[in-house]
C-alpha cells in the first residue's frame, strides 16, 4: 500500500462513525417512541370519532328498539359519545407493552 493509500485509509477512519454510540441509539429509540405515541393517539382519536358517529347515527333507534324510553336523543347522544370515548381511553391505557421482552 502506497503512502497516499495509507493516508486515504486514515482519512476514512477519521470521517467515519463510532461502532457504538449510545446517545444516538437512545435518540432513535425516543424518536420511535414519539412516533408510536402519535400513531396510538391518532388511532384512538379515529376510533372515538367512528364510535361517536355510530352512536349518534344509530343510538336513538337502537335504544328505542330496545324499549329504552328516549325522549330527547339530543341530550343522550353526547353522553353516549362521552362514554364511548372514556371506554376507548380505558382500553388504550390498559394495553400491555408490545415488546416481547
Amino acid at each position, binding site marked *: 500500500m*502506497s*503512502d*497516499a*493509500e495509507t*493516508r*486515504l485509509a*486514515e*482519512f*476514512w477512519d*477519521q*470521517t*467515519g*462513525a*463510532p*461502532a*457504538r*454510540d449510545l446517545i*444516538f*441509539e437512545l*435518540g*432513535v*429509540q425516543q*424518536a*420511535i417512541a414519539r*412516533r408510536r405515541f402519535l400513531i396510538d393517539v391518532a388511532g384512538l382519536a379515529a376510533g372515538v370519532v367512528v364510535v361517536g358517529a355510530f352512536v349518534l347515527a344509530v343510538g336513538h333507534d337502537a335504544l328505542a328498539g330496545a324499549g329504552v324510553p328516549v325522549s330527547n336523543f339530543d341530550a343522550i347522544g353526547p353522553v353516549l359519545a362521552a362514554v364511548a370515548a372514556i371506554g376507548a381511553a380505558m382500553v388504550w391505557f390498559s394495553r400491555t407493552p*408490545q*415488546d*416481547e*421482552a
Partner: protein
Amino acid sequence: MSEPDADLVAAARRGSQRAFQQLVERHQQAVRGFLRRTCADADDADDLAQETFLTAWSSLLLYRGGASLRSWLCAIAWKKSLTLRRSRGRERRRHDSLEETPPSALGAEARMDLAAALRTLPDEQRAAVALCLGGDFSHTEAAEALGLPLGTIKSHVQRGRAKLLAVLGGPDE
C-alpha cells in the same frame, strides 16, 4: 452468537422494539459513516441517520430481503440526503465537521484537501466512494443502495479513488 438480520427484522415486524434496537446498534455505524462522508455537515448527517432509522422502522414491511439490510438502510439514507441537499441548495453548503476531527498523523491540511476533494465529486460518485472505500460495502451492495448499475458503481469508485489519491500526491491510475 448474534442473530441474523432476517430474524431481527421478523421480530421487529412483530412489534419487538428490542429487535429493532439491535438492528440500529448493528448498522448505525455504516449508515452514519456513509452520511457523514456524503453530507456537508456531521450534525445533518446524524439527523438524517436518525430519520433513516425512523423511516426504516415504519417501513419494515416493505423490506423484501433481496438486498442486504444495510444496503436498504443506506438507500433510504441516500434518498433523504439528496432531498436535504436539494431543499437547501448548493450555495448553503458549509464546511463539514471534518475540521473538528482530532489531530492525527494525517495532517489537518491534507484532511481538509481530501474533504474538499470529496465534496467536489459528483453526488453519485461521492456516494459510491463513501460506501465502497469509506465503508466496507461491496460493489453489489453499493449498487443496491444507490440504485445504480454495477458497472456504473465500479466506474465511480475507480474514478473517485483516483481523484482522491491525486490530492494526496499518490498515483491516480
